[in-house]
C-alpha cells in the first residue's frame, strides 16, 4: 500500500492543479467572451451597431424624411420617404379641386342671377351712329394676344385638374390622353405668348390705370351696375382698373410659378416667399423646405391663382360682351359709339372730343 500513497498524493495534486486551471480558464474566458457576448446575439451577425440611437428611432427618422446618400445619383434620391407628397395629393385632390370648382361655378351662377335681374346694360341715349377711336390696332392686338393665350392656358390647365373626372369618362382614355398631351404642350408654349401679352398690356395701359379721385365716386355709386347712374370716369373706370391690377398681379404671379413648374427643381421660390411671410409677422410658416416641397407648393399656388384668376376673367368677359351693349366694339373694331363713351367714360370722351375739335379749329379758321 506504501506504493499507493505517493500515487494518491500525486493524483490529488493533479486534481487540484487541474481544477485550479479550469477555474482560471473559466474566469478568464468569461472575461474574454463576456465582451464578445455584447456584440453577438445567438452567434449571428453583430447588431445594435447604431450606438446610442435605438432601432425604432432610426426608422422613425427615415419615416420623417431623413435622407442618406446614393452612389451616382442626385441628392434628392437620398430621401427614402417624403410624406409631404401625401399632403400635396390631399390638398390638390381635396380642397383645391373642390373649392376651385365652387369658385368657378359660383361666379357663373352669380353672373346669371345678375343677368336675369339687371339684363343687358343698354346705351341709355341709344346709339348716336357716330363713333370715336378707343383702342388702336396695336392695343387691340396686345389685348387679344393676352386674352387668347389666357383662354388656351385656362382650358388646358383646367383640363389637367378636372378633365380626368369630366372628359375622360365621356371620350375614353385614349382620346383623352391624346388631347391632354396636346393641351399640356399648348400650355407649356402658349405661356410665353401670355407673358408677352401681359408685358405689352402693362406698358400700354399702366398710365391710365393709376387710381384717382373719380374712382371713389365710381365705387360709391357701385359703378352704375345696380342703378342707372353714370359716374364720371376717364379712359378706365374704377372697375376696369381693378381688372387691370388683378390681371397684372395674378398674371405675374402665375407666370413666375408657371416658370418654376416648367423648369422643375431648378428654383427656390417658396422658401424665400415664406421667409418674407414670417418677416411680415406670420411666424408659423415653414421655411426649411425640401426640393419636393418647393414644387408641391408652387403647383398649389399656380392652381389657386389660376382658379381665382379664371373666375375674375369670366366676370370680365361677361361685362365686355353679354353684359353691356356697345362694350365689345372697343376691342373688336376699336371704335365706340360716342353716346356709349359719354355714358361710361364721360371725362375721357369730353377730353378726346375737345382735343379733336381743337385740332379741327385751326384748320377751319384757315379756310
Amino acid at each position, binding site marked *: 500500500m506504501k506504493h499507493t500513497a505517493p500515487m494518491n498524493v500525486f493524483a490529488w495534486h493533479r486534481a487540484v492543479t487541474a481544477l485550479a486551471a479550469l477555474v482560471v480558464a473559466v474566469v478568464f474566458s468569461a472575461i474574454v467572451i463576456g465582451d464578445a457576448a455584447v456584440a453577438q*446575439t*445567438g452567434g*449571428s*451577425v453583430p*447588431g*445594435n*451597431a*447604431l*450606438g446610442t*440611437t435605438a*432601432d*425604432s428611432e*432610426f*426608422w422613425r427618422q*427615415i*419615416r420623417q424624411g*431623413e*435622407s*442618406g*446618400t*446614393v*452612389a451616382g*445619383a442626385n441628392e*434628392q*434620391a*437620398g*430621401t*427614402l*420617404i*417624403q*410624406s409631404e*407628397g*401625401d399632403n*400635396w*395629393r390631399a390638398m*390638390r*385632390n381635396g380642397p383645391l379641386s373642390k373649392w376651385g370648382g365652387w369658385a368657378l361655378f359660383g361666379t357663373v351662377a352669380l353672373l346669371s342671377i345678375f343677368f336675369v335681374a339687371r339684363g343687358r346694360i343698354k346705351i341709355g341715349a341709344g346709339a348716336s351712329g357716330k363713333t370715336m377711336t378707343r383702342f388702336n390696332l396695336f392695343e387691340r392686338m396686345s389685348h387679344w394676344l393676352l386674352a387668347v393665350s389666357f383662354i388656351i392656358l385656362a382650358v388646358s390647365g383646367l*383640363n*389637367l*385638374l378636372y*378633365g*380626368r373626372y369630366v372628359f*375622360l369618362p365621356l371620350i375614353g*382614355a*385614349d382620346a*383623352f*390622353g391624346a388631347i*391632354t*398631351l396636346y393641351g*399640356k404642350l399648348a400650355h*407649356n408654349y402658349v405661356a410665353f405668348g401670355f407673358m408677352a401679352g401681359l408685358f405689352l398690356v402693362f406698358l400700354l395701359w399702366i398710365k391710365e390705370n393709376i387710381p384717382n379721385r373719380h374712382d371713389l365716386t365710381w365705387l360709391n355709386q357701385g359703378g352704375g351696375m345696380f342703378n342707372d347712374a353714370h359716374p364720371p370716369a376717364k379712359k378706365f373706370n374704377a372697375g376696369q382698373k381693378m381688372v387691370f391690377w388683378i390681371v397684372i398681379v395674378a398674371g405675374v404671379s402665375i407666370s413666375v410659378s408657371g416658370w418654376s*413648374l*416648367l*423648369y*422643375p427643381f*431648378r428654383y427656390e421660390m417658396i422658401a424665400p416667399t415664406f421667409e418674407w411671410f414670417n418677416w411680415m409677422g406670420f411666424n408659423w410658416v415653414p421655411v426649411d423646405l425640401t426640393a*419636393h416641397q418647393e*414644387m*408641391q407648393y408652387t*403647383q398649389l399656388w399656380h392652381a389657386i391663382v389660376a382658379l381665382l384668376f379664371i373666375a375674375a376673367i369670366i366676370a370680365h368677359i361677361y361685362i365686355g360682351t353679354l353684359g353691356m351693349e356697345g362694350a365689345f366694339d372697343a376691342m373688336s373694331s376699336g371704335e365706340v359709339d360716342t353716346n356709349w363713351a359719354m355714358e361710361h367714360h364721360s371725362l375721357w370722351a369730353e377730353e378726346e372730343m375737345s382735343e379733336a375739335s381743337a385740332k379741327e379749329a385751326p384748320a377751319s379758321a384757315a379756310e
Partner: protein
Amino acid sequence: MARMKFLCDAERCIECNACVTACKNEHEVPWGINRRRVVTINDGGPGERSISVACMHCSDAPCMAVCPVDCFYQTDEGVVLHSKDLCIGCGYCFYACPFGAPQYPQVGNFGSRGKMDKCTFCNGGPEDDHSDAEFRSYGRNRLGEGKLPLCAEMCSTRALLAGDGDRVSDIYRERVIARGFGSGAWGWGRAYPGQGS
C-alpha cells in the same frame, strides 16, 4: 390571391447595387434611369445602414390619385402599373410618390420630361403579355412567366425580398426572431397602411 410586396432587410443589405444593375439589365432600362436605388444612411459612420428602394406598389397609391390622365392601374396582385401611351410626362406622380419611384428620361427640359418610367415589379405593362411592345416600353414580364422580380432573386445576401406579402413577412419575422434584433419592415407602414407588417 397573393399581394405582391417588397421588403428590404436593412440588417443585411451591403450596398452592392446588384439589384440596381440586375434591374437595369433585365429590362434594358433607358440611359439615365434607375428603377431601383440603394440609399445609405450614416454612410461611413457608426450604425451605417443601406436600403434598396424602388416603387413599393402602394395600397391607395398616391401616384394613381394625382395622375391627370388616370394612366395607372393596379393588378389583382397589387402591382401598380401605368400606360406610357397615355402618360403626358407632367411629373405629378413624382411630386406625390413617397418613395421617389417615378423617373423621367429627360430632366425638366422645357416641361418635356418624356414618359414616366418606374419599377413594374417585373410585371410588364398594359401591352400584350410578353410582346415586343411590352418589353420595349416596360421591360420583361417575369411575373407573367411565373417568376419573381429579378432584383430580389439576384440579391446575394437575401436582403431584398419580393413576393407574396404574407410569405415575405413570415420570412422576415423568422429572421428577426432568430437573430434577436433589427425589426424594421422598411416602408411598409407608409406603403401598405392598415395591413400590419
